């Protein structure tokens, strides 16, 4: 199933949370190229989320990572 939550109007005042479906992730690392403060593929070739509740100012870049992940493994949850 597609794991993308395509939020056009994020909830005001909510906290953005980055969610990874690790069954889908294959460490292509495109997310790391877009937002290295949040996504890091390490030497072990696994993806690590450095901060799963990034500041709202990062939303555009996180959303770009969501769009450009070849496996659609990233989604944003607005808590």
């Amino acid at each position: 199933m597609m794991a993308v939550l395509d939020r056009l109007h994020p909830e005001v005042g909510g906290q953005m949370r980055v969610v990874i479906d690790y069954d889908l992730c294959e460490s292509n690392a495109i997310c790391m190229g877009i937002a290295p403060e949040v996504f890091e593929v390490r030497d072990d070739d696994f993806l690590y989320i450095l901060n799963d509740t990034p500041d709202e100012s990062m939303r555009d870049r996180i959303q770009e990572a969501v769009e450009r992940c070849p496996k659609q493994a990233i989604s944003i949850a607005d808590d």
Partner: protein
Amino acid sequence: MTDTITVIGASLAGLHAARTLRQKGFEGHLVVVDADPHRPYDRPPLSKQVLSGEQDAEHIALQAPDELDIDWRLGTRAVALDQQARSVDVITPTGEAGTVSYDQLVIATGAAARSLPGTDGIAGIHVLRSLDDSLAVRAQLDAGARRVVVIGAGFIGAEVAATCRERGCEVTMIEALPVPLERAIGGEMGMVCARLHEQHGVDVRLGTAVDRIESDADAHGHRHVRSVELSDGTSIPADVVVVGIGVQVNTGWLQGSGLTLDDGIVVDDTLLAAPGIVAAGDLARYPSARYGQQVRVEHWDHAIVSGEAAAKRLLAEQRGEEPATFDPVPWFWSDQYDRKIHLAGRAAGHDQVKVVHGDVDEFVFVAVYGRGDQFLGVLGMNRPRHVVRLRALLDRGADLAEAIALAESL
């Protein structure tokens, strides 16, 4: 006043254009037209997970939530563009002539797979571009077809070969050029890819053209492929033939429209083809300052970023804003067996390629492409982290020496 934006082509580029229009505040009438009656789907799995049987149509559907408020015209083929009238002539799903109007237009009709001349009407021969193509090949494999011949050792052919090999088929891969992927990644790295397939037991025939296809007719006169006859006189028995010899852009319908057509729609450095008209995806030929020439990119990531940029270009036109230049660093990936191949930038025009990490014989490595001092691109196999770091250097125009230094430090 822009009431209506029409998008012709509902695959990855067109769909991202539509989504971006809504995300960036377009509230007017948004029409999306496509000849395919199916809702949009993602193509990369067609040569991999769909072909292997791991995934089906529902897994690869592209998200287009109802809140995008799209007026879908699927099964509707665009046949002509009238810039004066701001309308597109179409054939409706019932076969009637119709028109779709626009105030602004996104053209993203992409490309079609080239087929092998003289193979029409022979069962067992396929291109691999659409969901139907992938399901047709899969059906043959599921029914027991074991001898697969792949014509073309480009990325589509290579992925099909890998998937079929992993399904236990006998695979022969035929490439007319002496080295595969020469334009995409250069001859030296192309040979590494050929060796990867040989290591997995694929019979790789380089520098060999297909002379003809031999087929048998059944009692009803329906022909089915029997063998592929090569230019060197050899004959390869085949149950399934998959042709991956490239694509031709779908711009025939734009003849006489006034747009500049030259192996794609020629656009400016903001993706504008004409006032109120942008092009995105496989068929957009744009001037790249980065590479000093016009380029047309057929990759997945490009469809996304160009679709998004095309949408923003139309909004800039609407709002009287300064448009952004479009000149991204191309990014490409291919999954073959347990290898991930990544290419950031381009290899075209390189005068040197240097392996800066790992070992090509292990099929784990990073190589950089240069032209003089210029850093053109980076190729990685199972080294995504390195490719991403080097890609950042491409983004900011670092030179080759800096790229090599960084790579060797990682």
